[in-house]
């Protein structure tokens, strides 16, 4: 398990970079935002990603996936992060699709995974309820009725929920904290399922979901009744690592744009990048980003190797990526000066994405708490 990319990995990075640079300029995100596009992502780009095999990259070949590792997907997500791409790749492949891949029944896999891999279906995951990430605090509940379940409750921060063909919903089937959670695969057109799109600062596609006694057949359970947390932990570790890779791309791009600006912006007759007050802050950011890069790379590789420290590395990477992305984005805006707070310049979009990704799947303090617990203190 090496940090040095193989030739195949280099080629995946190159093709992801090329695709994103050619087909997903940040202007595309602006257009989707400004026209209030009902989908909120580019169909054309998504189709291209599916054709390149990105949509099903980590899914098994038997279900139409590419059978590659999280390390390879991480390269693609990093490039997506650079251009703030808001496509369904992360949510569908790592969240909803991730749950089905890890714990789904044979018929669930046969039905959904090939569709996900072809980019024809999007499956979201509805796991958040409160004001911040707290995985086992679930009020949504599922009561047994006849041959299935009736699910009621409210879910927030459902990534790509409004464009999903199905949503994996976390609901409580018995009391307890971590115990008693069950995952249900709910089709988008289920009676009693209400999905409302939310407009977030970063134009990422987030939905609020209300379940009013939604009927779920018994074969819609993903995994084992009452044991959903075991699946969720593993799904979210992988998703957390993937999200950290995306954040790494975002912070790298915001940083590079800022360094370029420091070299061309003149004040007092010299480039502002010649001022030590700014040089030192820029050099600090460089160090921080390099540390994040190592944690993300190690976490991706640990996930692929199935090693014992996946959870520890996932939390280390997300804790550091959350802090550093926000720090880099704040500094990037400050160093750009007045132009940095205008909508015209892209740098503000990175600031917004930084805040959203910081909180998604747990902010830094949450992951440090988890890191400490996993380390035995």
């Amino acid at each position, binding site marked *: 398990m090496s940090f040095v990319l193989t030739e195949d990995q280099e080629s995946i990075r190159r093709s992801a970079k090329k695709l994103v640079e050619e087909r997903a300029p940040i202007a595309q995100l602006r257009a989707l935002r400004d026209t209030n596009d009902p989908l909120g992502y580019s169909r054309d780009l998504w189709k291209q990603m599916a054709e390149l095999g990105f949509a099903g990259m980590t899914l098994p070949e038997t279900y139409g996936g590419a059978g590659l590792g999280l390390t390879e997907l991480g390269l693609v997500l990093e490039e997506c992060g650079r251009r703030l791409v808001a496509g369904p790749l992360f949510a569908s492949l790592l969240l909803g699709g991730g749950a089905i891949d890890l714990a789904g029944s044979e018929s669930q896999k046969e039905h959904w995974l090939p569709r996900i891999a072809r980019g024809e279906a999007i499956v979201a995951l509805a796991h958040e309820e409160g004001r911040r990430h707290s995985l086992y605090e679930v009020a949504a509940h599922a009561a047994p009725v006849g041959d299935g379940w009736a699910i009621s409750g409210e879910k927030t921060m459902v990534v790509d929920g409004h464009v999903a063909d199905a949503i994996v919903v976390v609901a409580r089937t018995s009391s307890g904290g971590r115990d008693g959670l069950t995952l249900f695969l709910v089709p988008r057109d289920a009676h009693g399922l209400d999905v409302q799109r939310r407009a977030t600062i970063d134009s990422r596609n987030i939905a609020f979901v209300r379940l009013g006694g939604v009927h779920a057949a018994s074969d819609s359970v993903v995994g084992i009744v009452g044991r959903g947390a075991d699946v969720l932990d593993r799904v979210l570790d992988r998703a957390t690592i993937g999200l950290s890779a995306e954040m790494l791309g975002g912070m790298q791009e915001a940083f590079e744009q800022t360094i370029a600006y420091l070299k061309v912006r003149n004040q007092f007759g010299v480039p502002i990048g010649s001022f030590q007050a700014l*040089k030192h802050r820029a050099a600090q950011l*460089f160090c921080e980003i390099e540390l*994040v890069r190592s*944690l993300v790379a190690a976490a991706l590789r640990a996930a692929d190797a199935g090693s014992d420290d996946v959870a520890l590395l996932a939390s280390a990477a997300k804790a550091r990526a959350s802090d550093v992305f926000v720090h880099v984005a704040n500094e990037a805006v400050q160093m750009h000066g007045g132009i940095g707070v205008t909508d015209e310049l892209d740098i503000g979009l990175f600031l917004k994405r930084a805040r959203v990704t910081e909180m998604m799947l747990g902010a830094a303090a949450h992951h440090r708490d988890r*890191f400490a617990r996993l380390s*035995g203190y």
Partner: protein
Amino acid sequence: MTEIMRFREEVREWLQAACPVSMRAPMVDERDDVWGGRRGAFASPDQRVWLERMAERGWTAPTWPTQYGGGGLDAARAAVLEEELKRLGCRPALKSLGVWMLGPALLAFGSEEQKREHLPKMARGEIRWCQGYSEPGAGSDLANVQTRAVLDGDEYVVDGQKVWTSHAHVADWIFCLVRTDPSAKKHEGISFLLIDMTSSGVRVKPIKLISGASPFCETFFEGVRVPAKNLVGRPNGGWTVAKAVLEHERALISRMRDARASEDEPLGSMAARYVGREGSGIADPVLRDRIAQADIDALALKLTLRRSAESVEAGRGPGPETSTFKLCATELSKRRLEIAVAIKGFQALGWSGDGYAADEIATTRAWLRSRASSIEGGSSEIQLNIIAKRVLGLPD
């Protein structure tokens, strides 16, 4: 079996036979360090035996050519040797600024005569070297050195003062930056000179630090006569040699911090011992969060060192991340010791004597000593300058 595997077996067998058992026990304090030199004493007969056996094979300087007292090993074999030494828990047979810093520079810039004269004695631990770089007026602005060396016949006459010369009071020779052309631009009038500390006119005065230790000295030169053949590289070309040595020094400082940190008690268990537990976690949530932050950063730094090493091994050369090592390693080590002091509370305020355990005093002294780590070998601010200039390409 490949040649490398055969070499590994041979090394393992030899180390089993050659390394005295007491030299495989964990090091306790600085008496376990062997620095060699004419004035260096061995704390035990085994220390002497272990050094002599390793030096015999040239393995105190594994990658140097054999004719200069080295082991003549390529990078792969040197790595095998290091792994096998670590596997057996062998202590370093010799710690040496000569081997670590001056030797590589002499191999690159020294004359044939200089290499033959000095390298074998370094490798055998016969001569202990110290570094004469900083001066009262040349700290971060190192190129401002004012110690003069004036050519008089086939000798240089050296006058001036060096400061922060590590272990000068026990060293035999010193490698110095001296000004040989005061009229040239400051980087271009410096030469790299090797000086015998027993020369007449050399005087050394130890500096007592806030930690109580005196690892550094002031070194004074008054009309010291040095053979001109002791100049390394070309006259007035000393800055190039100096920079090469500095790069080795920075790599060394970050490696030493890394090694030391891994020997220390984990902060998590230290905190559990001092502030107690509440449920499964440390009772103080703020302290716990600081520890987790520091532990995550330590993990990140360790992984970054590995990432860089793998890139070098794969033939892709060191990436820009290497310039972060000295800064990150020293700043992190300072932070960890700050936290250790916070954990031990009142017990970290003792200087000596009753009421304080040995490990408590050690923590306190290490914390005080650590304040120097982000100043020596190029301060953190200088490291940031270097990153801004060389990596980010920001203008002067």
